[in-house]
């Protein structure tokens, strides 16, 4: 028996039991897309549901109750989790994800005790980097479960939790884009390439050297900054219809979609932009300072996960 690293996928599937067909990637992608679509509709409901509810003579208004939307989100989350765990989890990944989520929960607890300026939060860095290294599915689980577990740890359980889980899950899921771009440095002479490639940083590099690397790392920083704003903008949506205030920036039943978006934009700029700017700057700072060493460690552990003894 020769100890050689062999190319095996990060996500290993044992054969399906007799009588059951193996899962397909197409079905899986469709489940993800449809569940996310329901999530998106639930989030943007304040913009279009009041108009529709008026047009359908009242009964449609019940389809906009907060309880209904939270139930819908929970069902979609349940479907997404079932699908994500089904294709992505093995013992190594479960242990790794559990530990990373624990670290994020501890960071959120520290943030609760000692709040940073504005919306600064240290928990997003690991969510982004996990999605970046391990792909969209693991990124989604990392984001959603980080918020769930840390809500238990910090006592932050409430009707906002499904929204937070969805948004953080999307953050991790979209970070998976960075894991699918071809590697920057081709690794000749090694058989364990392919599945754990990372465009921005190769574990064999000690720092970003060339121009392409800098551009790709810049893209990751821009992505983190964008999510600093997006997270706040998306999360505001669930509470915005319930807040009373200046009529120019408040939600009102019967608004047209365009008016709703306009008022929300004013509300966001007036109340949340500077707050979320701290989140965006914080994400960029954390990634700039800790991103590369953390990526290097995550890549090293991913390589360890793929190591198997060949026959």
């Amino acid at each position, binding site marked *: 028996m020769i100890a050689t690293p062999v190319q095996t996928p990060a996500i290993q599937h044992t054969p399906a039991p007799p009588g059951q067909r193996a*899962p397909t990637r197409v079905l899986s992608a469709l489940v993800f897309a449809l569940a996310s679509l329901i999530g998106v509709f639930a989030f943007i409901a304040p913009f279009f549901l009041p108009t529709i509810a008026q047009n359908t003579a009242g009964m449609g208004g019940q389809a906009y109750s907060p309880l209904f939307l939270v139930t*819908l989100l929970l069902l979609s989350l349940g479907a997404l989790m079932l699908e994500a765990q089904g294709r992505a989890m093995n013992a190594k990944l479960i242990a790794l994800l559990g530990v990373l989520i*624990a670290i994020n929960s501890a960071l959120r607890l520290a943030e609760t005790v000692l709040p940073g300026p504005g919306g600064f939060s240290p928990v997003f860095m690991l969510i982004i980097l996990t999605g970046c290294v391990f792909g969209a599915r693991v990124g989604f689980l990392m984001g959603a479960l980080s918020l769930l577990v840390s809500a238990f740890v910090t006592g932050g359980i409430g009707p906002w939790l499904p929204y937070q889980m969805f948004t953080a899950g999307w953050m991790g899921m979209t970070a998976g884009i960075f894991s699918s771009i071809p590697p920057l440095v081709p690794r000749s002479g090694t058989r364990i390439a392919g599945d754990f490639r990372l465009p921005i940083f190769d574990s064999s590099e000690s720092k970003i050297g060339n121009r392409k690397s800098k551009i790709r790392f810049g893209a990751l920083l821009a992505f983190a900054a964008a999510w600093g704003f997006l997270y706040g903008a998306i999360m505001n949506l669930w509470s915005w219809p319930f807040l009373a205030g200046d009529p120019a920036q408040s939600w009102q039943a019967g608004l047209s979609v365009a008016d709703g978006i306009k008022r929300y934009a004013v509300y966001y700029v007036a109340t949340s932009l500077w707050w979320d700017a701290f989140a965006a700057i914080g994400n960029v700072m954390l990634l700039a*300072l800790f991103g590369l060493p953390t990526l290097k460690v995550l890549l090293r552990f991913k390589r360890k996960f793929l190591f198997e003894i060949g026959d």
Partner: protein
Amino acid sequence: MPTLLWFLWSFGLMAIALSTRNPLYLVLLLLVACIVREAVRTPSQRGISILRFALIAIPLSAIFNAISVHFGDTVLFVVPGDLPVFSGPVTLEALAYGAINGLMLTTVLAAFSTLSLAVAPREWMRLAPRAYQSVGLTMSIAMGFAPQVMARLREVRDAQAIRGHRVRGLRDWLPLWMPLLTGSLEQSMQMSEAMVARGYGATHSQATSARAQGLLLAGLALGLLGWVMQLLVVNGWWLGTGLLVAGGVLLFAAMRLSAGNAPHTAYRQQRWQARDVVIALMLTATCTGVLIAPALGIAPSLTYTPYPALTAPSFDVWIGVALLAFLAPLLRRG
């Protein structure tokens, strides 16, 4: 004590702590949680120091609230200038409210820490629905490991301090962050190897079957269609509701089908004793009495706020006695 009973104990205590800002009740709950925590802790379990956490959390929370919330009658001093958030009067009430928030957070942490010490991760996992076994296991590892992360951070910080390292800025966290991350991931490797050695994932497929995926997809599609019908189609409310219910049934069926792939057995079954039933009844009665009865107007409220002018919090003896029911785990151990 059975796992479910520990959950009832901790979530009941946390729910009461989260629903009051009365410092007297919070101090009582914190003391009760700490007593139970010390009783369940074995010599090999370290956990985090609640006292140390309180000494950090309460003053910091008080200071942060005082400088960021400018509300209250008793002005201590005024921060001049036009600094966003910080400029304005610093009041005694805001200081007190921040301290109470820190106390509440410490109480929640004490309850959570007790739960993580009392219930082994494998017991957490048993409570997860079978369809979500992998997610449940991940969560149980995370919840069991969270207090260890804080203890590890303390160890790393002490070790670096011996070498002369001081945290002055964000950059100085790197020598603490990297050993914390690497050490934790090394531990996750050992954990996964132990799981594999014990046969985790060896006997059945972890993957969702194509049939379950089909059911998931159909359930989501019907749910979305039902919702759209409720909203867009005139007189389509009932049809839409029917489709939504059908979608929910299909999703449930997908979960049932996936659960069939994840059988789990227990070497030792937890058995409820008469004392456990008594404790469960005591805790349920306490939570109901303290949380729901005030809303019905048949019991005094837990509500207290230091705003707009700081006053002494009230203390109802009967509520105090009722909260002592959270000492019930001591009866079980005795």
